[in-house]
C-alpha cells in the first residue's frame, strides 16, 4: 500500500517537473529565437508604456486598490476548511453509521449559521 503510494506520487512528482519544464522550454525557445534574430526586439519607451487606451497613465504605479471582497475571502476560508473535513467523510459515508450523519449535519449547520449571519448583515452584497 505504502509502496503504491510512493510509486504513484513519484510519477506525479516527475510529471510536475516535466510540466514546469515544458513551458520553460518554450519560453527558452522563444528567447533563443530572439537571440538568433527570428524575432524582432526593438523596445522604445513609447512601446514599453503600460497600455491605457493610448494615453499616458495618470497617477502612481501601484495604488491602494479598493478591493471590497474581504468578507468573501473570510467566508471562502471557512468553507474551504469545512470541505477538507467533508471529503474523507463523504468517501467513506457509504459505510458509516447514523451518528456520523448527525455529526456532520451539526458541523455544517454551525457553518451555515455564520453564512446566514453574513447574508443577514448584507455582507454578501456590494456596498460602498
Amino acid at each position: 500500500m505504502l509502496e503504491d503510494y510512493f510509486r504513484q506520487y513519484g510519477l506525479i512528482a516527475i510529471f510536475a517537473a516535466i510540466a514546469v519544464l515544458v513551458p520553460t522550454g518554450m519560453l527558452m525557445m522563444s528567447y533563443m529565437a530572439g537571440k538568433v534574430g527570428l524575432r524582432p526586439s526593438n523596445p522604445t519607451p513609447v512601446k514599453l508604456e503600460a497600455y491605457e487606451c493610448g494615453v499616458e497613465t495618470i497617477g502612481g504605479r501601484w495604488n491602494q486598490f479598493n478591493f471590497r471582497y474581504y468578507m468573501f475571502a473570510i467566508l471562502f476560508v471557512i468553507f474551504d476548511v469545512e470541505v477538507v473535513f467533508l471529503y474523507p467523510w463523504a468517501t467513506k459515508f457509504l459505510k458509516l453509521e447514523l451518528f456520523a450523519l448527525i455529526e456532520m449535519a451539526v458541523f455544517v449547520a454551525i457553518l451555515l449559521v455564520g453564512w446566514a449571519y453574513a447574508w443577514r448583515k448584507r455582507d454578501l452584497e456590494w456596498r460602498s
Partner: protein
Amino acid sequence: MNCQLAADNILFENALYRVIYDAVGSFLPCWLAYVAAGLAIMLILVNAVLLGAALVTWFERRLLGRFHNRIGPNRWGPFGLLQPIADLAKLMTKEDLIPAGADKITFSLVPLVMMAPLLLMTAVIPFSKNTALANLNVGVLFILAIGSLTTVAIFMAGWSSNNRYALFGAARAVAVLISYEVPVVISLLGVVMVAGSMSLANIVQAQAIPFLLVQPLALLIFLTGMSAELNRTPFDVAEAESEIIAGYHIEYSGIKFALIFAAETGAMLVVAATIATLFLSGWVGPFAEYIGWFWFLLKTLLVLFVFVWIRATYPRLRVDQIMALSWKFLLPLSLINLAATTLEVFFLRDSAGTLATIDLWIMAGINIPLALGCIFLFGNLVPENAKVLSVRPTTVVVPAVATVEVR
C-alpha cells in the same frame, strides 16, 4: 532482471506501457523501467494537452463562426485545421515586450505558473480503461486543488503588469475564484459520496448510469462554477474585452501570450474532460474495452460544445452579480444537493455499504425533480428587476418645470 508489474497498477493492462516496461525492465532496474514507461505516458499527456489546446482554439473559433452565421478560420489546412499552428508561428516571431515598470520576474513567470498545473491535472484523468498516469485515491481533490492554482497566475499577471486594466482583471478573477470554489467543491461531495471513492477511475466504474442523471444539480453547479473559474461567458469578467479590454493579460505579447492563451483553452479542455469523467461516465460506452478513448473524446467534445454554445449566447454578468449568484444561489443549491444525496445514500444503501443500479435510478428519479424544483424556487427569489415585463405603459410624461439641481 525480471520485473513484474504490480497487478493493482492502473496501467497494468495498458499495452504501450507494458511494452516499454518490459523492454526497459529487461536490462535496467525495475524502478527505472517504471519511470521510463511512465515518461512515455507523460509525453503523450503533454502533447495531448498542447495539441488539444491548439485544436480547441480551432474548434471554438470555428464553432463560434458557425453560431455567428459566418465561416470561421478556414484558410490553413483542411477546414482551417492548421490555423493554430499559423497563430503560434506568428506569435513566436512577435516582439516579446515587458512593459516598463512591470515586475519583470513575476511577469515572466506567469505563463509557467499557468501552464504547469494544467498539465499536472491531466495526470489523474482516466482516458480509457486502465489508462491514467496515476490512480490517486484523492483524485477529485487533486484536480480541484491543482486547478485553482491558475488563479494565482492570473493574479500574478494582473499585479505585475503595472496596468490598471490588468489590476481590475486580477482583482475580479480572485473575487470570482474565492466565490466559486466553495459551491464547486461542495457539489462534488455528492459525486464522491455516491461513488464511495475519490479516485477518478473508481468513480467512472461506479457510474452504472451516468451521474448526469444521478446528480443533475451537482453537474449544474460544477458547470457554472467551472465556467466562472475558467473566465468563460457569462462569467468572463476577468478578461471582459468590452470593459477592461483583455483584463489580466493585456500587456502580454509574443510567446508569453501564446502560452497564456494555450493554457486558457487547455484548461477548458481539461475541465471538459473532468466533467466527462465525473458526470458522463468517462470512457464507458459500447465496446469500451477497445474504443474507450473514443467515447471519452466524444463526451469531452460534447462538454466543449456546451461551453462554446453558452459563450455564443449569453451576455456577461457584472462582478457583484456573479458573487451574489455564487453565494446566494449556487451555495444553497449545493448544500441542498449535499443534504439530499446524504439522505438518499443513507436510506438506499444496503448493509454491505454499496448502491445497486436500481438505487441509482431511484436517486435520479428524486434528484431530477428536486433540481428543477430548486431552480424554480430560487428563480422566484431573484430580484424584481430581473423579471420580464411584457406589458408596459406608454403614457405621455411631459414633466413640470424642471427642478433639477444644477451643480
